[in-house]
Every structure is written in C-alpha cells, then in structure tokens.
C-alpha cells in the first residue's frame, strides 16, 4: 500500500469508521424488514410465520435478517399482477439493503480501496446474486411442488430407508454447511476484486481449499446458522416483541455475518498473496 493510499484510508476511517457503517446499516436493514412486513400487510399479502423453523433453514451464504416471517409460493399464486409485482419488489428490498450495507462495509474495510461506495457494476452483480438467491426457493417450489428444505427432508430415498425428517436434518446439515462454506467469500471478492459471480465462486472454492480453511469456513457457517436460529430466543424471553427482535437481532447477527465473511476473505486472500 502506498503512502497516499494509507492516507486516504486513514482519512476515510476518521470520517466514517467501518463499524459505524455496519452497525447503522444493519439496524437500517432491521427497520426495512419491519417496513416490509407492514408493506405486505398494506397490500394484504400474507407472510408465513417461520418463527419455529429449523436450524437447517438458517444456513445462509449471505447475511440475512432475523426472519420470523417468510414469503411462500402459496401467497403469490393467483395474485393480481400489480400486487404480485409489488409483493416481489417489497420482498427483495431488505435483501438488496443487506447487499448494499455489506458491500460498503467490505469496501471501506479494504486496504486498497478508495472512497465510500464500491463501483456500481460490482454492487449490481452482488444485488443480482441476492435477487436470484432470494427468489430461488420460490422458483424451486413452483417447479418441483415443494420448498427445497421439505424436498430434501421428504426425499424418497430417505423415506425408503425409513429416515425421518428430523434425522435427515442431522444427516444433511454438515454437507450443506460444507458446500456453503466453500462459497463463503465469493460475495466479498465480487466487491473487493471485481470478480463476476462464476469467477468469484471458482476463486472462493480454490482459495478456501488452498488455504486449508475448509474446516474454518464450515464452522463459521454452522456457527452463524446457529446464531440466526437462536437469536430470537433471548429477545422473546425479555419481551421486546416482534419489532425489537427483528431490529436488534438483525443488527447483531447481520453485522457478525458480514464481519465473518470479511475475516475469512482476509485469511484466504493473504494466503493466496503469499503463495503467489
């Protein structure tokens, strides 16, 4: 890093430290989730209560939000077109906000970046990936006839072998965390290195494997999934209600997830740099 770069980074940090961007941004995401719920109520489209969901469903590549609710395919089928467009748009907003906050945080935490906002094309690709990931379960449900988690839990082979849904969850959670773990730094490299989605995935798999960080990536994914799963519990106990759970839970876990992705990126990136 040159002296000029270092000065720019110091100047940027003194104006807007990354942790403030992350804290405020993650809280804003929580607020946007509340607005989203109200938005669905306003357009009278139902959301599914998933407050009793399994840890299986908490495994996530990208930071998410504390989601006591989700949008199911059943709520979208037969909607009037104008309402459908509005519902899908509202549903995508918090995800886009997550991408924006994470992208800005990664960018201003980068040692060889300048300014506060990543280049628009990089943000655009990340947003695109987020949209695809957000809508993929609905698309899967539409095509296959059940959501991906239930599809796996009720897969005929497991049924044939007499393995129940709970046991399937235990059996599959590790392999799925392993797969997601290998992709864990792909979004970060899209922002910091400008890689396109396919290249970012290839780089993520290669560099995590190369750095011997497969176990670490898997543990991170599992830990975060567990965190997303249990974070509503204490809020429920101390009675902060739905709004408090969404705001505080999203701020804490969203920030933790974003930081964990950057930490792993720095580890594997340093290893790649050293190797070259």
């Amino acid at each position, binding site marked *: 890093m040159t002296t000029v770069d270092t000065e720019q980074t110091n100047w940027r940090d003194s104006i807007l430290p990354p942790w403030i961007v992350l804290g405020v941004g993650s809280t804003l995401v929580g607020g946007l989730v*509340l*607005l989203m*719920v*109200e*938005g*669905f*109520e*306003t*357009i*009278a*489209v*139902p*959301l*599914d*209560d998933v*407050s009793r969901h399994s840890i299986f469903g908490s495994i996530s590549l990208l930071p998410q939000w504390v989601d*006591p*609710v989700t949008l199911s395919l*059943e*709520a979208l*089928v*037969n*909607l*009037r077109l*104008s*309402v459908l467009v*509005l519902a899908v748009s*509202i549903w995508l907003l918090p995800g886009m906000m997550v991408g924006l906050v994470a992208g800005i945080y990664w960018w201003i935490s980068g040692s060889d970046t300048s300014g506060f906002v990543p280049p628009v094309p990089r943000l655009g690709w990340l947003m695109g990936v987020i949209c695809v990931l957000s809508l993929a379960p609905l698309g899967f449900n539409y095509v296959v*006839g*059940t959501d991906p988690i239930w599809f796996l839990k009720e897969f005929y082979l497991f049924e044939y072998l007499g393995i129940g849904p709970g046991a399937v969850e235990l059996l599959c959670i590790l392999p799925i965390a392993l797969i997601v773990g290998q992709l864990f730094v792909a979004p970060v490299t899209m922002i910091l290195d400008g890689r396109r989605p396919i290249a970012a995935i290839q780089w993520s798999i290669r560099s995590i494997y190369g750095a011997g960080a497969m176990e670490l990536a898997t543990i991170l994914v599992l830990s975060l999934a567990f965190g997303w799963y249990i974070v509503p519990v204490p809020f429920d106990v101390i009675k902060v209600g*739905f709004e408090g759970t969404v705001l505080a839970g999203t701020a804490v876990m969203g920030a933790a997830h974003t930081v964990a992705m950057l930490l792993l990126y720095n580890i594997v990136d340093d290893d790649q740099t050293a190797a070259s």
Partner: protein
Amino acid sequence: MDSDGVSRRAVLGGVVAAMAGGGCLATGKSPKPRASDWPQQGYDAGGTSFKSDGSPPTAEPEVVWNTQVSMAYRPHYLRFPHVVIGNGTVYTSGGTAVSLDSGTVQGQTGCYNRCFKAFARTESYTNGVLIADDEPLGLPDSKKPSVESLTDSIRGFRPDIDSTSDCTRLTRWTAGSPTDIEMDVERLRVSNGEIIATAELPDEGERDTSALLMGIDTDDGAVNWRTSLWTEPFDLYVDADYIYMHFGMQMVGDEMSADDNAHNPYRGLVTVLDRETRDPVYQDLPEESRSIKSLRLGLLRGARDGIAYVLEFDPLDKPPYYAPILVAFDVAAGEPRWRVDLTEHATYDRDELLNNGYSGVGPVAIGPDKIYASFGDKLGAFSTTDGSLQWLRKLYSWNLTATPDALYSTSWYPEKRVSCSDPETGETLWSRSFGEDVEVHKLIVADSKLLVPLDSQIVALEEQ
C-alpha cells in the same frame, strides 16, 4: 382493540403506501360476488338464508347432474354439512371440489378434517379464498389423515383444488399473519372482506376474559381488531352496522340438551355491538344488565338491516327457555318493533314436540320485506315491517332458502320432499322427492341452479 397495532400500521403503512404509488391497492372495497357464490353476497353473515342473486328454478326442474361427493358432518350440526361455492366450483365439507356447470369432480383435498366454512372474494387474489376453521368433522376413520400437522386456527386456502392438493400446499394464510395465532374457534362469519370470529386463545394464560371477538382480513389473515367478551357466545350474526351475539342457549335437538341450558346463567342474553367501534349499543339497560351489557331477549335466529330476529325468552324460564314467539328487535330503537305469537297460527303440542327433540320453531329465512318461518305444522310469511301474517300453509319444514322469486324448503312429513313455493302467496310451484332413505340438507341457490345436498351426493336442479 389493538390500538398499538393501528398506530404502528398508520405510520409504517403510510410509508409503504407512498412507496406503492399512493396506496391505490388498499382501497378497502371487496370485489363483487358472483351469482353462483354461496353463501351469498356478504356471505350471509346475518344468517338470513336469503339470496337475491341468481335465477334458480321456479318451474318444474330437471336433474342436470348428480355427483357422489365426500360429505362430513360436525357433531353439533348433524343436519348441516357445509357446502360453499366459489369461482363456479362446489366445495363440500368432506373436501371434494365439483364443477358447478357439469358436476364433474375436479379434485379431493387432503384437508379432511378442515371444514371449508366460507368463500370470500378478495382484493389481492383473483380467485378469492376458501376459509376453514378448526372444528372437527365426523369422518369415518378410513378418511382421516394419517398426519395432521396444522394447529387449531382459522385458515385461508387457495381455491384451486386439484387431485394433488394437500393441506400445506393449499394454505395461503393462518389467522394472525404474519404471526400465527393458535385458537379454538367458536363461531365464524364472513362479511364484506372481513371474518368476524369468536375464539379462545389457548396460549394466553394471563388473560382474564374467557373469549375474544376478532376481525380478520380475508386477504391475508391479519387480525384487524380484537375485543374481549365476558363469556363465550353461543352464536354470532353480523350485518352492515352491528354484530349480534347470544349467550347460553342452544336449540333443543342438537347436542346440548335443555339440562345444559338450565345450568347456564347467561341463557337468553343477547349483546349487540356497533360494527365500527365494537361498543355495546344498548344505552338504557336495566341495572342488573349493565355489567354484562346484554338484554335477556331469547334465542337469536338471524339479523338483517339492524333488526335482530329472536324467539322470545320464556317468562317461565322453563326448557327450552324460549317461547314460540317471534320478535323483531329494532337495535337502534332499543325495543321490539313487533312480536308474533306463533302458537296462534299453528297446531302445537309443545310437550310432544319437545319429547321428540324438536323445539316447535324451525328455521327462518329473512328477506327484505318478509320473514319466512317454519313452526309447528306450518310454514308462514310475515311482514318485516309490522309482523303481519302474509300467508300460511301446512308444511313440516326443516330448512328454508329464500330468493325474491322462490322459497325452497325441505319437508319431513308426511314424506321427505324438496318444495318450491311462491314467496308472495305460499302456493307450491313444484315439489320433488329424493326418497325416504336419504337426508336432504340445506338447499343451495347457485345462479340458475338449485343444489340439493344429500348424505353423500349433490343433485343439481335446473329449470327445463
């Protein structure tokens, strides 16, 4: 009433409405029902059994289809398996979907122990919503599902039932959306885009009321408002301005016996709430009624245009605790508009009737100008304005469905028949027997057809 929810919705909803381009979607208007929908416009929340839309047969009809269906019965309502119609499809309480036009079976849902209670048109969805509650149905064991994962609540189902439909894939919302509410639903009516229900919430251990009255959005299942009740009502009726409830009385002949009524201190009490504010409407109550905000009127049989139609409470307070006296109680005026002693018009042996499990007053159908009532051995029509007798004929009838052009009834003596009478004169226009071995249930008017639900089949009649 959840005032916190309203203010939060006002603030946050306003932002979203602005995002949605002025909130043009949330118009608050319910789409107009079709002539084939059943129960009819407003979903007959007043229990009037009167349908103004459609042109069912008034001359000798022919059978246009006759289809075997799965029909389920509730222990409390053995005579009334629920059948609802929406989008030209007939949904039976056993979960069969039948085309109204052709009688072809379109599918059988896996929601065997859910009873479709109503069909509502919605703002957000093009095909409306089927509404079901949690009340168990009397089904043979072979038809009960092996797995039932749904908790007790009110649910909205997609109406597009096909042969692969199961409960999970059909469920669009659970009451309370986005946070599901588990509840024991007692009574449920649907009126202009809103479900009005009484329920107990098993999870709310700290509450000190025994029942709740709730308004639930038919589009998304959100609870628009809730208010506590001092006890659980036996029945519930709704019209444009009021919510009517009666307490502590059950018709003799159903599961609850006269003895049960005897032990209920609330027998004969009727409470009417303002539809908008949910405040009790009676102003000048006797002192003993002020705490419970009810009047001891009797057994509520239906409501229309601000008039509660009740069978008067028996002044002797003897089983069945109401007399064969029909009263039209004007809610706004707070006093009866008229009172008709039905025993003056019918041959009554009340003791014999009671011994046979029959109260002596059967069903009523309430039109804008006339109320039709079956009582003793007679079927009669009375003016809704002053209670004057319009016509009277001998007929033992046990259910009525009225339209502007026809009054349909099923009779059980001297033989089981479906009859169509002229609503102006009572003259029989046609009648038809379906045999003595089958039960004929509530007759349904669906556009140009009259549907006759039998034990395990539905017969559609249409004018030749």
